């Protein structure tokens, strides 16, 4: 029997002896005076994090930009003189008003079949941000849960490594092609498709992080004191990882938008009635070799870049702010 286990056993025996099920200790109310002598502060991790984050001007700017962008995508259809995002505009001669350069009527011009790019870009941003946020949230939730267990619980390591190796090594395309037979294309499908295997890298990342820190002294100490696994993970390990996790999650949003393009290629893309940034960029890429049509790539690409950069800067600054060592 290991020493730690023995210590744990002793402690639990001691607790039982002292008062059965009841807690050995009870929480004392905060008292500034006695805190002074005990070295206790009302330091709150999250409050300090937010405070540190707020002082970062670039990050705050990006956050505002993102919020503005998000609200504009919602407001845009309600503004006067807006065109539908799939409506085709016609010329007198019966042809479509295609590749109409940006002007007063069409702020971003029209695409190759005469649809208003302005309306499409905003509608696409709306769709893509929604998809990106959902995917990032799903992947983070599943990834962190699995990764934390995988990294910390040694008995699960072998099993989860096995599961990871199997799923990770089956080409995503095979799974996606098969998924495409089972479900109809749509926003829900695309989110599902991105989550099927999308959580794996996150789980693996968390696992590796935890493996490197789980044997550090303070965790050893925690274990010695008999802290339950769940508590060690949530209180000792995850906060330490908050900074790197936020960075990962922030980057997951733009990468989800990027993989839309690929899914469209596989045939799992969104229906044509739902424009998205991924599809707009894909359409733009097809015409980018001609300078006069390049605006069809540039407008959606600018919006995508703004989103990506914002998430990156916010993620990075938040990661910095979330590091407790930067709080002092």
């Amino acid at each position, binding site marked *: 029997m*290991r*020493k*730690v286990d023995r210590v744990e056993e002793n402690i639990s025996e001691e607790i039982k002896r002292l008062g059965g099920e009841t807690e050995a200790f009870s929480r004392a109310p905060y008292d500034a005076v006695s805190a002074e002598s005990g070295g206790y502060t009302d330091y709150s991790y999250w409050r300090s994090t937010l405070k540190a984050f707020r002082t970062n001007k670039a990050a705050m700017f990006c956050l505002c930009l993102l919020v503005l962008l998000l609200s504009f995508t919602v407001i845009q259809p309600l503004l006067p003189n807006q065109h539908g995002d799939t409506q085709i505009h016609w010329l007198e001669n019966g042809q479509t008003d295609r590749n109409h350069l940006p002007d007063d009527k069409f702020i971003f011009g029209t695409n190759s079949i005469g649809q208003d790019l302005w309306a499409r870009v905003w509608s696409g941003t709306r769709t893509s941000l929604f998809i990106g946020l959902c995917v990032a949230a799903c992947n983070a939730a599943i990834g962190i849960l699995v990764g934390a267990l995988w990294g910390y619980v*040694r008995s699960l390591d*072998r099993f989860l*490594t*096995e599961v990871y*190796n*199997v799923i*990770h*090594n*089956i*080409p995503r*395309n*095979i*799974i996606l*092609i*098969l998924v495409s*037979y089972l479900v109809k294309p749509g926003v829900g499908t695309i989110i599902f498709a991105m989550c099927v295997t999308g959580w794996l890298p996150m789980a693996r990342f968390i696992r*590796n*992080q935890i*493996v*490197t820190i789980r*044997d*550090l002294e303070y965790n050893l100490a925690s274990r010695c004191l008999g802290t339950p696994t769940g508590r060690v993970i949530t209180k000792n390990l995850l906060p330490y990882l908050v900074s*790197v996790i936020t*960075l990962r999650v922030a*980057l997951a949003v*733009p990468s989800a938008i*990027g993989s839309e*393009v690929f899914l469209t290629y596989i045939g799992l893309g969104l229906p044509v009635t739902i424009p998205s940034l991924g599809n707009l*960029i894909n359409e733009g*890429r097809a015409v*980018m*070799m001609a300078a006069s049509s390049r605006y069809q*790539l540039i407008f959606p*690409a600018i919006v*995508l*870049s703004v989103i*990506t*950069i914002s998430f*990156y*800067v916010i993620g990075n600054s938040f*990661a*910095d702010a979330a*590091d407790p*060592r*930067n709080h002092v």
Partner: protein
Amino acid sequence: MIKYILKRLLQSLLTLFIIATVVFFLMRLMPEEGYFGEKYDKMDPEQIEAELTAMGLRDPIPVQLWRFYGSLLRLDFGKSITVRPKVAIAKIISQKAPYSIRFGLCSVAISLLVGIPMGTVMALFKKKIPDKLGNMYIIFIHAVPAAVYYLFIQLYVTDILHLPILYNERDPVSQWLPMISMSLGGTASYAMWTRRYVVDQMNRDYVKFARAKGVSEGGITFGHMLRNALVPMAQNLPATILLTISGSIYIESLYSIPGMGNLLLSAISRQDNPLVQALVLIYSSLGIFGLLLGDLLMVLCDPRIKLVREKEDR
């Protein structure tokens, strides 16, 4: 340790076996039209049956599975059925892999040699000009889709420097640009993570202590901080290096490099079952082996990490 490695290797065999079986079944779920591609429209139903029979797809699944296991044991990947009918898979791969490995290794090397120093410098000059410049580069790489900037690099850089657009076996200069383009993404992410981990280490007590002890700044950076910062990255490195064999889809397509980049993709879309199975097995065994190497490398870099639960815990 050796026992541990042997155990992991044996375990990998089991994993590979499971992967091979799962992929085998998944490929059998694919619709039959996929085996014929464009030819499908001009064929009679009897012909389709005959061809499927000839491909061995009309045998009962257990028979097919048994045959598949048999060929696995003999380490015989068989022949391609739709991508390059009748050509031995070993031959297809041996023709293509060297290109991907060469380009991949060079680009990983460039990424590492540029990315890590770049990240370190960025961290040491945190919030100063080098950091800002580096960040701009990283942001650019992340913000602009690779498919877009690859194409622009190919057209404009070749134009300005008078380099050939396409890769040419007879012209070594033509391989530089693809290699450099290929390394851009890796450079950015190595720089990003190095910077982050080094910044993480900078506030550690041991660094402060070392500085107080009078260890030179260089000694602190390279002897202590970088070594600790690189640990989390070391884990992925072996797998990255081994998997360079899988090639780069975009770069190889743009520059006409006959590598492995598109092979798995086209094998899947043309439903070349033996080729898909072979590629998945190769890639996954390299991936799993890479993971093992990564774990070992991590232990080498950081003795505090334990992979084996030692009998006597202190």
